[in-house]
């Protein structure tokens, strides 16, 4: 707390020194936007007017998390600390609802307008979020156009439920049907094994019940560099007896962006390959 108090005092002093700007009331078109969240980073890069987006989060440049890592190289990055964000003099900050509460509170106390966006839990949330981010940026028309294109292509990609698959990630986490990953799986034409064992909202599925469920395919996540015990489960000999789907859940699966459609298309192709 002491550290935060120091930061806020320093920041207040900075306000007095700079003397410029001041918070822009909601509804006006923001001129300097900083995004603190991997998902709002991508939507902002796609929707913002040239020069409007001032900085994105450092995660946006990580190719394992961000499908737009190359595009993000064109923007300065922040590590999401109130001090560095404030010094960029943003009139709008885009944050996730899970962004550090202390940072968001502090920025608000300093008079910065912060808009928060929840990570989408369903495919229907994706279009909603595209429109909302567009509106916040003063680019409502672009947001609506992106949402319509998304919904149209999603409708053409959707497949009837076919083989049974399980999402399986580090530590034995499985995405249930009521998660974005679960909806991607369903849209690509798979039945979710997690629902058979009562994990509709996702959760940790030990190896034993997964093996006994005998899914037609397992969709695993990407493995990060370095080593972790949590990811060792993905190379467990017992898991090798199950069929891996020809696609992994990667950066395209994380956020409600148009990249979700690429994930569905790839997984759909993997399902067709399994049927052969």
């Amino acid at each position: 707390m002491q550290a935060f108090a120091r930061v806020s005092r320093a920041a207040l002093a900075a306000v007095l020194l700079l003397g410029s700007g001041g918070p822009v009331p909601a509804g006006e078109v923001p001129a300097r936007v900083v995004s603190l969240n991997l998902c709002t980073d991508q939507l902002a890069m796609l929707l913002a007017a040239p020069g409007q987006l001032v900085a994105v989060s450092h995660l946006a440049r990580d190719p394992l998390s961000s499908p737009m890592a190359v595009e993000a190289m064109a923007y300065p990055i922040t590590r999401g600390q109130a001090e560095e964000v404030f010094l960029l003099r943003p009139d709008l900050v885009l944050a996730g609802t899970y962004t550090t509460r202390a940072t968001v509170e502090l920025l608000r106390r300093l008079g910065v307008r912060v808009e928060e966006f929840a990570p989408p839990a369903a495919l229907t949330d994706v279009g909603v979020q595209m429109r909302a981010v567009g509106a916040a940026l003063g680019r409502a028309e672009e947001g609506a156009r992106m949402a319509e294109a998304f919904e149209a292509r999603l409708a053409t990609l959707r497949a009837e439920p076919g083989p049974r698959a399980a999402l399986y990630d580090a530590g034995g986490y499985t995405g249930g049907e009521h998660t974005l990953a679960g909806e991607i799986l369903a849209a690509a034409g798979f039945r979710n094994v997690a629902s058979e064992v009562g994990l509709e909202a996702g959760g940790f599925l030990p190896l034993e019940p997964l093996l006994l469920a005998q899914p037609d395919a397992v969709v695993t996540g990407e493995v990060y560099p370095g080593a972790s015990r949590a990811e060792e489960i993905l190379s467990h000999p017992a898991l090798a007896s199950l069929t891996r789907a020809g696609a992994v859940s990667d950066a395209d699966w994380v956020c409600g962006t148009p990249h979700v459609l690429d994930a569905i298309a790839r997984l759909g192709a993997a399902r067709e390959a399994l049927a052969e």
Partner: protein
Amino acid sequence: MSRKLGIALGALVLLLFAGSLLIGPAALGLGESLAALVRGGAERDAVALVMQEVRLPRALLGLMTGASLGLAGAAMQGFLRNPLAEPGLIGTSASAALGAVIALQTGIASLHLLALPGAALLGALVSVGLILAIAGPRGGALALILAGIALSALAGALTALVLNLSPNPFAAAEIVFWMLGSLTDRSMVHVGVAAPFVLAGGAVLISLGRGLDALTLGEDAAAALGVNLARLRLLVILGAAALVGGVTAVAGAIGFVGLVVPHVLRPFVGARPSALLPASALGGAAMVLAADIAVRLIAPDRDLKLGVLTAMIGAPFFLHLIWRLRRQLA
């Protein structure tokens, strides 16, 4: 070890080993699961896979981990003639964990199957060597414990540092595993990795029983009886490091087993190290198998760490021992 005690401990271990095989998230019948254990070839169905690839390695690792820690504890206590010497308390386990973490994070572990336990052994070796140099057979309990605390803290801090600096987002969350140990979702690969070190270290320490017996009479008496103290010391260091390194590399640092088990069994074997060594191996195996069963019964879906349970039993024991030793410590 008297025959009766051996049979009783052996039966207990067998019972707990079977219990470990029969308890898991997938509810399988008794006959069904035991039959699945030996099913091979084309008949290898999902149940056989669960029994052979998930439960069997877990039970085997429980057996190996417990036996190793019990045996290493008994040997170190015998050599130092100090009931507080224990791999977890004097930093051997923490140093082995540090060695394992460094091997994993630098990628050395993927070069060769035995590189991981080898690195853990190296970590354990450094710490046992240091402790013996500082506290030695003539050093008091105080020097032993203080040096152990310092080494434990340093190794723990370095482990946390290495994991925090890892590019892997899951690594930092695993500090808990390396400090408290767990047998969840280990595979036959892990059994194979630890086994050579456990077998070699075990064989070395068990063979030292007579030398340690002689040492109970004092160093001069032992030397007069033909015991080569320098060789004995070297073998205790090597054997304990191999055991602790081997099991810590795959199961994390599990404390207090080597403290509690020899202490409980000592009255039954008449305080003779040669009898205490095998008894402590069996007792340690029973303690860890029981703790691992408890972990699965108390919080089946939470991956409760083994060290939590062993510390809950072990820490009060440790306080009790300190209480009795406080005059010597003061």
